[in-house]
């Protein structure tokens, strides 16, 4: 190929990309924490005694897993402000879309982990007088979480990748900044290669660590 790759024009704009990366990390952190906390609540909700709670939790999971995240983000950005008298910034829309989606996936992961704990553990805990909540907190969840760490880590990686969708509503994250640099310097090939490489550099070590984790867990179980 006789194309002259020109990475200099990308690195000249490293500051713009750095700002974008900062936005990515901020969005990621918020969505990770919100998504997984809510996911745990929803997973517990699916086991609640009250039928309405169970039903609502299941409906939540089904809906947010079976609709595309981008549609959710756009709905929150364009449709919600019409329904409610609120300002929805790109950041808010992205948080709402990605967190709720991640909560739905996380809920299923938590649910699977909890169900994998054998009934004997519940019985032993109840037999010494623990309440359901205490049993969850002290006996079941500690064991369940250990088992689902690989799946949760995968979910975390997915969330990190999903932050790029926020560029569609012009939230300032890495890809959005990439688009900006590319449009100003006419070097989309180099820019997007660098952006992809940045994601690789950040995520690949985590992905590899997960492989190791999975193997270690399989051995110890």
């Amino acid at each position: 190929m006789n194309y002259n790759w020109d990475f200099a024009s990308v690195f000249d704009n490293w500051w713009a990309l750095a700002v974008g990366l900062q936005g990515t990390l901020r969005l990621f952190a918020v969505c990770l924490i919100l998504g997984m906390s809510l996911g745990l609540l929803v997973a517990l909700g699916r086991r609640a005694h009250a039928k309405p709670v169970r039903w609502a939790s299941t409906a939540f999971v089904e809906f947010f897993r079976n609709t595309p995240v981008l549609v959710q983000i756009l709905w929150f950005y364009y449709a919600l402000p019409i329904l409610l008298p609120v300002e929805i910034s790109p950041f808010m829309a992205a948080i709402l879309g990605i967190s709720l989606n991640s909560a739905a996936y996380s809920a299923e992961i938590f649910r699977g982990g909890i169900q994998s704990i054998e009934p004997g553990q519940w019985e032993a805990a109840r037999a010494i007088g623990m309440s359901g909540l205490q049993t969850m907190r002290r006996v079941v969840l500690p064991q369940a979480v250990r088992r689902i760490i690989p799946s949760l880590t995968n979910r975390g990686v997915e969330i990190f990748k999903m932050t790029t969708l926020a560029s569609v509503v012009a939230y300032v994250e890495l890809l959005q900044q990439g688009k900006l640099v590319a449009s100003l310097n006419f070097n989309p090939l180099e820019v997007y290669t660098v952006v992809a490489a940045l994601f690789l550099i950040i995520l690949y070590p985590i992905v590899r660590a997960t492989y190791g984790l999975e193997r270690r867990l399989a051995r110890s179980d």
Partner: protein
Amino acid sequence: MPDPILRLSGLAKSFDTNTVFEDVDLDVAPGDRIAILGASGSGKSTLLRCVNLLEIPDAGRIELNGDVVGNPEKSGRARYPERELRELRKRVGMVFQQFNLFPHMTVAGNVAEGLVTVLGQSSGPARERALAELDRVGLRDKADTYPSRLSGGQKQRVAIARALAMDPEIMLFDEPTSALDPALVGEVLGVIEQLANEGRTMLLVTHEIGFAYHVANRIAFIAEGGIYEIGTPDEVLKNPRREKTQKFLAEHRRFQF
């Protein structure tokens, strides 16, 4: 008889269309060691699990030291509200066939867990108490090991210590040695015998008929949906009066006493 520590009246339990037992009455005096025998599927484990309400009986009354448990006259979820269940289980100790130790806690952690989480004790005194119970079952040196490193017999002894730490008024043993390697059965039976000699009240579901003869003061044989025959070990095991008891014992000739 002195006031019974446990009184079961008219206990009944079915699963779907299958009646496990109905109209079971039993008085357990303080210091009683009642061995519950029966064929597989006779309902002996279910009966035991009704005493600490891991199975909810469909009908009947449970009284622990004169206190009626729950509201048996009511129906549905009001009969045994959550709070009552928890209060009952603080007073009744259970040892499971599959041990069910908490794998993510150390041995001492397992024994102290009830004290800290359920009884609200602080970790210092709870650990002291846990070590004392472990001493009693001969496993103090394993206090800071994890259950995965123990043999079956050791795990079960820890399970017994965990139940004892709660100071239960009555101990329930659900086939405590059935899941053990034959070589390890003895160490667990030894601990149970020790408890029996100390005068602990206990209900013991077991297949170890020789041990039952030795340790129990009453034997209950479960068949035909209830307590088919009950009496002293000499009565039930040496001179069974009823047909099914005789059949059962004949099939279990392998014991010695």
